[in-house]
C-alpha cells in the first residue's frame, strides 16, 4: 500500500475545508449521529501522536461516523484505567505494560503496533561512545531504577556482563550526560537525544531494537469486550489512524507544523517537533509495513516479543495480539 501522495499544502487545505464545513453547520445527519469515542494517548500532545492529529484535522473519522476525542496522557495519567473503565475505546500502550496489565486481570488485546521497533536507545557522547552492547562494560549508565530489567534483558541478549555496568539513578534528563556524571543514558530515541541535538550537542544513539530488544511500543490496545461489541468503531478508528500515519510519513514537517498549530498552549517548539518527527519514521515504518500496511506485525515479531518479555519477567502468549481489526482495515 503506497503512502498517500499528500503535500503539506494540500493537507492544510483539506484541514481548512473540514473546518469550514463544520462552521457552516454541515453536521452529520442526526439519523447517522456520530458515535463518540476516545483515544487515550500515552503522553502529552506532541508529534509522537501526529498521525492521529492528521486524521482528526482532515475529518477522516468524522466521515466514517466517528467523533473521536484525543485524551492527553501525563505523568499521573496511566493509560490502562480509562480503557478498562470504558472512558476510552482505545489506548496507546506498549507490549510490556499491556502484558503487565493482562497479568493483573485486564482483558486487553493489542490491535495495532505503531512503533515496530522499540524506541529505547543507549545515548552517549561521541568521544566516549556506546555503539554496540559490548561497549557498555565498565560504563556508568544514567537511568531510572525501574528500568533495570530492560538493561538486564539487553545484556542477556548480547552476552554482556550486567554486573560490569554501573547504574546511576538519574532523573529523565540529559543533564547528567552533558555534565559527564554518567557515560551514557537509557532513554528514548525521540526525546532526550532530540533535546540534546536542539541544544547543539550531538549524541550517539544505539537503538536497542537493533540488538535483539524486541518490545512493541506505542501499541493500540482495546478490551476483549470492545473487540466483540464495538468492532465497527474500532475498525473506523484504526482506519483513520492508518490513513493519518501514512500522511505523516509523506511529510513529517507538515505533521510537525500541524501539531504545533493544533496545540498552541502545549509549549511545543517547531524545529524540535520536526526533528522528532523525522527520527520517529524508521521506528514506525519498515519494508513489512510497506507491504502489509501501517500498524501491522509479523508472527516472527510476536515470537521475538514473547522472548524479550520473558526476559523482562512477563509470560505472554501470541493471543495477546489480535490482528482482526487491522485485517478489516487493510482488507476493506
Amino acid at each position: 500500500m503506497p503512502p498517500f501522495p499528500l503535500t503539506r499544502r494540500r493537507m492544510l487545505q483539506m484541514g481548512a475545508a473540514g473546518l469550514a464545513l463544520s462552521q457552516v453547520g454541515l453536521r452529520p445527519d442526526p439519523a447517522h449521529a456520530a458515535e463518540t469515542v476516545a483515544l487515550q494517548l500515552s503522553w502529552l500532545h506532541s508529534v509522537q501522536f501526529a498521525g492521529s492529529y492528521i486524521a482528526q484535522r482532515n475529518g477522516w473519522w468524522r466521515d466514517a461516523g466517528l467523533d473521536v476525542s484525543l485524551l492527553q496522557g501525563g505523568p499521573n495519567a496511566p493509560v490502562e484505567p480509562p480503557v478498562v473503565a470504558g472512558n476510552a475505546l482505545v489506548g496507546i500502550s506498549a507490549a510490556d505494560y499491556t502484558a503487565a496489565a493482562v497479568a493483573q486481570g485486564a482483558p486487553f488485546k493489542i490491535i495495532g503496533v505503531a512503533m515496530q521497533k522499540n524506541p529505547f536507545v543507549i545515548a552517549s557522547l561521541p568521544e566516549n561512545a556506546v555503539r554496540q552492547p559490548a561497549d557498555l562494560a565498565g560504563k556508568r549508565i544514567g537511568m531510572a531504577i525501574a528500568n533495570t530489567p530492560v538493561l538486564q534483558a539487553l545484556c542477556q541478549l548480547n552476552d554482556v556482563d550486567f554486573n560490569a555496568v554501573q547504574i546511576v539513578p538519574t532523573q529523565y534528563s540529559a543533564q547528567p550526560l552533558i555534565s559527564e556524571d554518567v557515560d551514557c543514558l537509557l532513554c528514548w530515541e525521540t526525546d532526550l537525544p532530540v533535546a540534546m541535538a536542539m541544544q547543539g550537542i550531538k549524541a550517539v544513539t544505539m537503538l536497542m531494537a537493533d540488538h535483539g530488544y524486541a518490545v512493541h511500543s506505542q501499541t493500540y490496545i482495546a478490551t476483549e469486550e470492545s473487540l466483540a461489541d464495538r468492532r465497527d468503531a474500532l475498525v473506523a478508528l484504526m482506519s483513520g489512524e492508518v490513513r493519518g500515519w501514512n500522511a505523516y510519513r509523506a511529510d513529517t514537517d507538515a505533521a510537525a507544523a500541524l501539531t504545533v498549530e493544533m496545540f498552541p498552549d502545549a509549549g511545543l517548539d517547531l524545529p524540535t517537533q520536526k526533528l522528532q518527527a523525522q527520527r520517529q519514521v524508521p521506528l514506525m515504518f519498515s519494508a513489512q509495513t510497506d507491504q502489509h500496511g501501517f500498524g501491522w506485525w509479523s508472527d516472527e515479531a510476536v515470537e521475538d516479543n514473547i522472548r524479550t518479555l520473558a526476559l523482562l519477567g512477563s509470560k505472554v502468549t501470541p493471543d495477546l495480539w489480535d490482528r482482526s481489526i487491522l485485517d478489516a482495515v487493510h482488507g476493506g
Partner: protein
Amino acid sequence: MADAVIGTLILLALWQGLAFALQDRFLIAGPAQVLGWSIANAGLIGRALVVTGSNAALGFLAGNLAAIGLAALALVVPRLIPMISGLALVVFCLPMVATGPILRVMMGPGNGPQIVLAALAVYYTTLIPLLAGLRAAPASWLDLIHVYGRGRWAELRHIRLRAALPYLAAGLQIAAPAAFLGAMVGEFTGAERGMGVLTIRFTRALDIPAIWSLAAIAALVAIAAYALIGGIARRILHEPPPVILAPPPGGPTQRGWMQALAVLIAVLALWWAGMRLAGLSPFFAKRPSDVLAALAWAPDAAQTRGTLATALAQTARHVLPGYCAGLALGAGLAVLLGLVPRLSAVLTPLAVALRSIPIVTTAPLIVLLAGRGAAGTVLLVAVMVFFPTFVACQHGLRQAPGRILDVFDSYAASRLRKLIHVGIPAMLPALFAAARISVPAAVLAVTVVEWLATGGGIGGLMSLSASVSDYDMLWSAVVLVTLMSWLGHAVISAAERRVLATHAPEQVRP
C-alpha cells in the same frame, strides 16, 4: 517595606551571581534570563497561568467552602468533631498519585481533577484553624450573650462567626499557594493545558530557562495571592492575627481509641461504598478487601510486604531528617530573627518564596542541584516543613507576655537571656502546632519528589505500580502512607499534650 525591597534585591543579585558561576552546567537560569524568556513567551505563559489560576481559584473556593461547611456542621453537632477532623485528616493524607487517575476516570476530560485536587489541597488547612477559631472565644464574651438571655444562635452570630474570621484568614492565606500546587498536580492526570503541563514538557526538554521561569512565575503568583489575602485580612480585621493553636485532638485515652476506631470504620465504609457507587472497575480501584488480601493471604503477600517495607524504609530515611531539619530551621530562624531583627529583610522574602514555589517545579530543580541522593529529597521535605514552622514560631515569640519581659528588662537582661527564659517557652505551643500540621505536608513532599524526580521510596513504588498496573501494590502503598501520616500526627499530638500540660496549660482544654 523598604527593607523588604532591599532584601529582595539582594536575593536577586545572589541568584544572578550563582547563575553566572554555573553557566555551563545547564542548572541555573538567572533572573535576567528568566525575564527574557518570560517576555518572549508571554502569550504561552499567560494562557497557561489563566488556566491553572482559574482552576486553582475554583478549587480554592470549593475547598474552603467545604471546610466552612464542615466547621459549621461541627458547630451544630459538636459530637461529630472527632469524626470530622479524623476523616478530614485521612482524606488530606491520601497521596495524589492514587487519587489523580481515579478522579480522571470518574470526571473524564476537562478541568474536574485539577479543581478537585486543588480543593483537596486546601480544605484541611482551613478546616483546622476554623474549628479552633470557632471555639476560641473567651468565656467572658459568651457570658455577655447569656446575661441578656440569648442562646447559641446569638453566640454564633455576634461572637463566634466574627471571632473565627482571623483564623479563617490565616487558613486562607496558607491555602492560596496550596491550591495552585493542587491544580498543577491535577494537570498531570492528562490535562490539555496549564502550568503543570508546561512544567512536564520543559523538564523533559531540559529547557533550563523555561523551567526556572515557570518556577519563578508560579512563585510570584503564589506569593501575590498570599500577600493579597494577608492584606485584605489586615484591612478588614482589626485584631492582631491569631496563632493557630488548635488543641490536639483526644489523647490516648480509652475514648481516644474508640474515636480512632470509629474513624477507621467510617473510612473503610466510605472507601468501599464510594467505589461501589461510582462503579469503578476493580482492576484499578481496589477495595479494602483486595488490599487486605494482597497484604495478608495472597500467594505473594510476603513479597508485597517486603517490597513495601523496603520502600518505606527508604522514604523514612528521607522524610525523618527532612522533617526534623525543617522544624529546626523554622524554629532556629525565628529565634535568629528575634536576636538580630535586621536579618528579616533578607530572610523573610526568601522564606515566603521558598514555601510558595510549587513543589512540582522545585523538585526537578533541587534534585538537579543537589543530586538524586538523599540530599535533594531531604532538602525539599525540609523546605515544606520549614515555612509553617517559621511563621508559627515567629507568632509564638511575639506572644511572650509583655509584663514578664518588662521584669527582665528591669534587670537589663540580654536579648539572649530573654529569649531563653521567656521567648522559647512562649514559642513551644506554636512549634508543636506547626509540627503537627507539617506531618501530612512532609509526607506529601517526600512522595511527590520520589514520584516525579528520584523514583525511589514509597512514592517511586506507587508510580511504578501504576505504570505496570499493579494496583494491589499501589493501594497497599496508599493505605500505608495514609496510616503513617495519621500515626505521625497522633504521636506529635500526644507529645504536644504532655509538653503543653507543663509549659502552657491554658492551651490544653478539656
